């Protein structure tokens, strides 16, 4: 094995030498004063040996004379020789897994250099629930992410940027609109009616991640996470298994995302950082559409075919729609014009981003101040996302024992919004995918009206929907060391979100007919959190370390909304509700509270055996009186096998750890705050007078949804950590699943909240990291992660249908989000009609013949990152992939209307492959009526493979040599270019295999009216001084 390493050492050097030479001219030209001062007066050979911490020679160590390209590597015994070295040379000695050393040669000719192991990776500090831990002592499954690689991906929110970065965490962007909600699933989904999103904790504050949006944007929702500037984040930890999440008890079932924002350091000189970038983005591909003549041809065929099928319709060749104008028709097909509306809607969008921060500290104070502004236009007009944010983190030592501090994030997010999803009124893509042959925006120089969907030009000129989110996330803490090892900490946190939305639909738009509609919605969400912890840590002798933690939290969330609307405006110059002739208003208030107590004990024997146990008790106001409290225990153990005597000498193996954990976590998010209570509403008015009526049935037995999870993990590292891998298998099983159970309608109610579903998630995750090459000039690292999750509904009495046209069915024995379709077997070459599979063999195609054919779950997903630094250049290439997931191309269903939707929709070019005459072999049937067999809702023809491999980002950076940047007074200057989504490999025939029209968790995977994620290019610079 040693030889193996050695060979590779030499091999790398030989291989890279030409490259080194070719790019080294910049460095040869560094005869700066300070370097020159080390040069020896007399030149001569230097010999030496490099030893490891045990005194053994290390082969393959790279030794380079600083400031030159001259370098050698050690032989099998760790020895090296440099034939010609300048006087006072400094040697840079580097080897993977050890700290790089600089050695001053002085007048010596023989050197012995002992390298110190770099425990960087193993001793890396990881933020865990209510504390931090060194990686080597972790028992749970936690992934730590440094967001600096991804923070330039223009998505608005940091969670969307993490796609493909975390093993076992599936992130789907849903849309190309920046700042919109993403679908994020940590180890699958556990619930049907409660939330499946993870818990987000920012500097100890449990923040709201449910959109406060109330205006309709076609099923889409904004992301509250986009209020946070990704550049303010220092690290992101994703807690996945029960051991890691158990301290978050009731909130942990869907994983926990811990965000730690940047802070200063004690005794740090003020450091100013500036990051500025500007960029452009556009759609990589658009739909292939029929021209006006092609459209007309298909419509005529449809007309004639339906006439043949149903003679009573009196549709014949003679009265086909596209017949000569002289015969009363719309002109022959070849006379039709083609209006390009996509070109009017899509644009090259501008992006800009500026971050400025100051960090530093004195003996007792450390601070971080940051300000940022970002603007991202969507690739479709008029959508725009802007965020201005401000941050102050401050920590002050009061004395040796007491420290206080604050964290503050204040941001204002402004959005120009539009309906880029489902829906008839104001739907951008529906308006853009309109009939190509008519409705030019102008007729005799005057803008004309709409048909079915809005006229696109009118829509774009008059869209007036925007929202302003004012967000504060802050925390003040005090911590004191009562006796050595015993720390008390108390903190108060606040998450406040004022969300201001307004719409004005003037009378040229469908939604504003006939005389204008204005709405205003003011929503306020505030979450107040108080938390105390008492932690004790003690080492006895040198082998026993134990820790104890107890604590409590109290949280209170209040949501308020005031809504007003006005209709009937004198003209389009009046846009405020006060000018409307009829107005309406409403007000909502809702509150929930949570009280929690938790305790954790851990024990570490000689860094070899680690065990811990924790329990959390949560009381929630949402549940029935006797069912408010839930108890969530977890245990975990790890064995660092590498620390055992028998592995001590296996030097190739640098770490081996086996971990196991089991625990129970809960979920209550997403259910109504008063879900357990029987309620009457006051909104049942009649003839303008108030009325009351039953609203929902109570269920005093409503209780916590609970997920038990077993996790077994193996951590491996080889060659001093040069190659490391983490492997986890898990089994999650959710019981008491919160479900709106169907009641017989004869009771007067249709559902009530109950604990009725069971869902399992099983899977594995693999993360591999390797340093492929490392010399003092060149470093190439690769990290790969892949995961598989198998989701199954284990218990559900009645199947539930979701999505437009019931495309999604939740059914026992199948995964959540399964597509429920009619399987198209073929198109009969004789008749041109679709042949569907007659599942129940009754000779008819009815809903009973729908079947589940796939789901949105991939068989395998993950990401691959390569980092290459060479001298002053850095390159980051990041791919994400998903394999085996399905997507329903609903755009294509509408676009292949076979002529039936002539009046409202364009026809996709794919429809031209229709059957025309006996003998034609095709999968596109002859055009005929709507919703008869051939163009039936839910045909499997539009259910497609959504697998993809995406070059998510490619970043190339160049850091100016220090000597140059120093000259202009800068500490560091880096120029970079980021390309986003530059390449996509997929069989999907829509625009983007990640599109989803709805942000509703039960309606994922239906692609309708959604713009794709754009291809982007940004140019930027980082400056520190």
């Amino acid at each position, binding site marked *: 094995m040693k030889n193996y390493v050695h060979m590779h050492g030499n091999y790398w050097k030989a291989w890279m030498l030409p490259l080194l030479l070719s790019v080294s001219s910049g460095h040869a030209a560094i005869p700066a004063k300070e370097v020159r001062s080390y040069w020896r007066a007399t030149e001569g050979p230097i010999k030496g040996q490099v030893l490891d911490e045990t005194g053994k020679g290390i082969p393959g160590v790279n030794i380079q004379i600083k400031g030159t390209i001259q370098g050698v590597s050690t032989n099998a015994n760790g020895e090296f020789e440099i034939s010609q070295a300048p006087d006072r040379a400094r040697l840079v000695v580097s080897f993977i897994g050890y700290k790089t050393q600089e050695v001053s040669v002085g007048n010596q000719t023989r050197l012995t250099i002992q390298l110190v192991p770099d425990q960087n990776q193993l001793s890396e500090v990881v933020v865990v629930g209510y504390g931090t831990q060194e990686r080597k002592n972790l028992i749970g499954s936690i992934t730590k992410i440094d967001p600096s690689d991804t923070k330039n991906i223009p998505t608005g929110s940091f969670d969307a940027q993490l796609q493909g970065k975390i093993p076992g965490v599936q992130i789907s962007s849903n849309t190309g609109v920046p700042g919109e909600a993403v679908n994020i699933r940590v180890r699958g989904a556990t619930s049907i009616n409660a939330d499946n999103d993870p818990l987000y904790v920012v500097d100890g504050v449990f923040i709201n991640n449910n959109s406060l949006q109330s205006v309709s944007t076609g099923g889409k929702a904004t992301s509250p996470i986009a209020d946070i500037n990704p550049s303010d984040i220092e690290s992101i930890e994703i807690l996945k298994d029960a051991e890691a999440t158990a301290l978050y008890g009731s909130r942990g079932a869907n994983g926990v995302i811990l965000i730690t924002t940047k802070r200063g350091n004690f005794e740090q000189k003020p450091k100013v950082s500036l990051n500025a970038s500007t960029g452009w983005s556009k759609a990589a591909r658009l739909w292939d559409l029929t021209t006006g003549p092609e459209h007309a041809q298909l419509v005529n065929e449809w007309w004639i075919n339906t006439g043949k099928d149903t003679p009573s319709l009196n549709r014949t060749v003679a009265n086909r729609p596209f017949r000569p104008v002289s015969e009363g028709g719309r002109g022959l097909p070849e006379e039709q014009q083609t209006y390009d509306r996509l070109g009017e809607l899509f644009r090259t969008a501008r992006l800009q981003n500026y971050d400025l921060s100051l960090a530093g500290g004195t003996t007792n104070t450390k601070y971080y101040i940051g300000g940022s502004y970002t603007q991202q236009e969507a690739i479709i007009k008029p959508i725009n996302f802007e965020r201005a944010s401000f941050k102050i983190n401050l920590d002050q030592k009061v004395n040796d024992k007491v420290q206080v501090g604050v964290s503050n994030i204040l941001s204002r997010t402004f959005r120009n919004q539009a309906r880029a999803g489902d829906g008839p009124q104001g739907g951008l893509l529906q308006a853009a995918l309109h009939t190509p042959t008519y409705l030019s925006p102008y007729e005799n120089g005057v803008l004309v*009206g709409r048909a079915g969907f809005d006229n696109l030009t009118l829509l774009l000129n008059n869209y007036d929907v925007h929202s302003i989110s004012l967000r504060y996330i802050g925390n003040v803490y005090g911590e004191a060391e009562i006796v050595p090892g015993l720390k*008390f900490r108390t903190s108060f946190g606040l998450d406040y979100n004022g969300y201001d939305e307004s719409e004005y639909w003037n009378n040229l738009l469908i939604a504003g007919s006939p005389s204008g509609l204005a709405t205003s919605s003011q929503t306020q969400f505030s979450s107040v959190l108080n938390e105390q912890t008492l932690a004790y840590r003690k080492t006895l002798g040198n082998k026993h370390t134990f820790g104890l933690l107890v604590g409590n939290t109290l949280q209170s969330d209040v949501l308020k909304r005031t809504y007003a609307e006005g209709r009937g405006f004198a003209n389009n110059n009046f846009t405020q509700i006060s000018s409307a002739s009829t107005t309406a208003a409403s007000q909502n208030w809702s509150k929930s509270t949570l009280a929690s107590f938790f305790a954790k004990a851990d024990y570490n024997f000689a860094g070899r055996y680690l065990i811990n146990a924790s329990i959390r008790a949560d009381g929630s106001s949402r549940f029935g009186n006797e069912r408010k409290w839930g108890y969530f225990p977890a245990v975990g153990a790890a064995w660092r096998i590498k620390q055992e005597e028998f592995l001590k000498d296996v030097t190739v193996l640098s770490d081996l750890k086996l971990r196991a954990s089991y625990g129970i976590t809960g979920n209550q998010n997403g259910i109504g705050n008063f879900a357990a209570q029987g309620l009457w509403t006051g909104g049942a008015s009649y003839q303008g007078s108030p009325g009351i009526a039953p609203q929902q049935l109570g269920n005093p037995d409503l209780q916590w949804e609970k997920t038990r999870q077993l996790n077994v993990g193996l951590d491996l590292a080889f060659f001093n950590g040069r190659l490391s891998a983490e492997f986890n298998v898990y089994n999650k099983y959710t019981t008491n699943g919160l479900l709106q159970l169907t009641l017989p309608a004869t009771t007067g109610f249709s559902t009530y909240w109950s604990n009725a579903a069971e869902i399992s998630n099983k899977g594995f995750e693999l993360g591999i990291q390797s340093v492929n090459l490392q010399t003092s000039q060149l470093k190439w690292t690769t990290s790969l992660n892949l995961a598989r999750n198998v989701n199954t509904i284990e218990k559900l009495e009645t199947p539930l249908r979701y999505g*437009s046209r019931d495309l999604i069915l939740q059914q026992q024995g199948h995964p959540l989000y399964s597509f429920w379709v009619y399987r198209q077997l073929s198109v009969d070459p004789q008749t041109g009609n679709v042949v569907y599979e007659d599942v129940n063999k009754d000779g008819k195609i009815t809903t009973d013949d729908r079947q589940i054919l796939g789901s949105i779950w991939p068989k395998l997903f993950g990401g691959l990152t390569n980092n290459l630094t060479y001298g002053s250049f850095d390159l980051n290439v990041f791919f994400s992939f998903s394999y085996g997931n399905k997507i329903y191309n609903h755009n294509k269903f509408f676009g292949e209307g076979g002529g039936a939707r002539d009046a409202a929709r364009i026809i996709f070019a794919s429809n031209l492959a229709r059957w025309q005459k006996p003998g034609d072999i095709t999968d596109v049937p002859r055009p005929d009526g709507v919703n008869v067999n051939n163009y039936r809702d839910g045909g499997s023809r539009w259910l497609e493979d959504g697998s993809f491999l995406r070059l998510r980002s490619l970043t190339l950076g160049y850091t100016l040599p220090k000597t140059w940047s120093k000259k202009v007074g800068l500490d560091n200057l880096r120029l970079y270019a980021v390309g986003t989504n530059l390449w996509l490999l997929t069989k999907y025939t829509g625009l983007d295999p990640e599109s989803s029209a709805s942000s509703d968790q039960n309606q994922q995977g239906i692609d309708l009216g959604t713009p794709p994620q754009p291809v982007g290019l940004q140019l930027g610079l980082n400056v520190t001084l």
Partner: protein
Amino acid sequence: MKATFLILVSILFLTSCQSFLDVKPKESISDAVTITDKTSAETAVRGVYSALASGNYYGTNFQAIGYLSGDNVEWTGSQSIVQEFINHKVNADNGMISGVWIAIYQTINRANNVLAKVNDVADPALTTALKNQYLGEAYFVRALAYFDLARVWGGVPLITKPTVTPADNRGIARSSTAETYAQVLKDLDAAESLLPATTDRYRATQKTVWALKARYYLYQKDWVKAEEYASKLIGDATNYSLIKPYRTFFADTPGVRRNPFSRFSTTVPLKSTPIAGSGSRKLTVVRVSGHPIRLWSRYSTMPAWVETGAYSSPKTTKIAGTATSTTATLAQTLRTCFALPNNT
């Protein structure tokens, strides 16, 4: 240190968890305290009428499932749920049908709550006369609901007690059509005895009961009784007469009393009237002189003349032209039931 512990202890225990976790809504009230005095009884009865007016019942859909089957209605949208009515081939899982079914039983449950609770209210302000009126109105609405159920589904489960817990009213078998009609008559009789013989355009009175009884007996082919009850209204010429022209029945024109559609739902403009569903399943009916009634959904198209002002002088001629269309009968039912006034 001592102080710190004191703070901790106080925060932990002085906050009474029980009251901290006891959060009551402000928009709604607990179903334990609903009909307790005159005001709550009065508002609960309005709640019953409001259910009758809901979108899935008389608001829109209950009528739509009738007239969609007419031969003068065309559906050009892409959703099969509506097309099923046009094709006269309605599947059991049709969402509009279940929506109507649910809405009617919601109405019944509201009426049942009034019937079960009003008698026990001890508030002296709730006089016997008022109690009788409220109970009578609830009986009338329940009668109308079972009458509608019987006409559409035949025999149905007869629920006469309110649902208070998820276990209530479960497992009640379907009654026969005759039993269902018997329930209708029983409720009508109760309503007739409790309600005053006044004229009210918005709420049920004894006269409204007569109107529905006339209709009920028509369905029972009891021509004598049908005539008897119809005659009671026809004879009341000071309050009731036929409106002319017929189309004003559907109009919402100033000077003309609102039609029963708008009485139950919101005010709707003539030229485009949302008639069914909400949100993604909204339908719009457009009635223009010289054209058949057309229905528009989000995926269908309004021709240019609708949007460019060609409808400036609409002349609604009819909403349902054939004897087989249930819309006509429904309209007549409502006209009779709610005793539309003349135009003056």
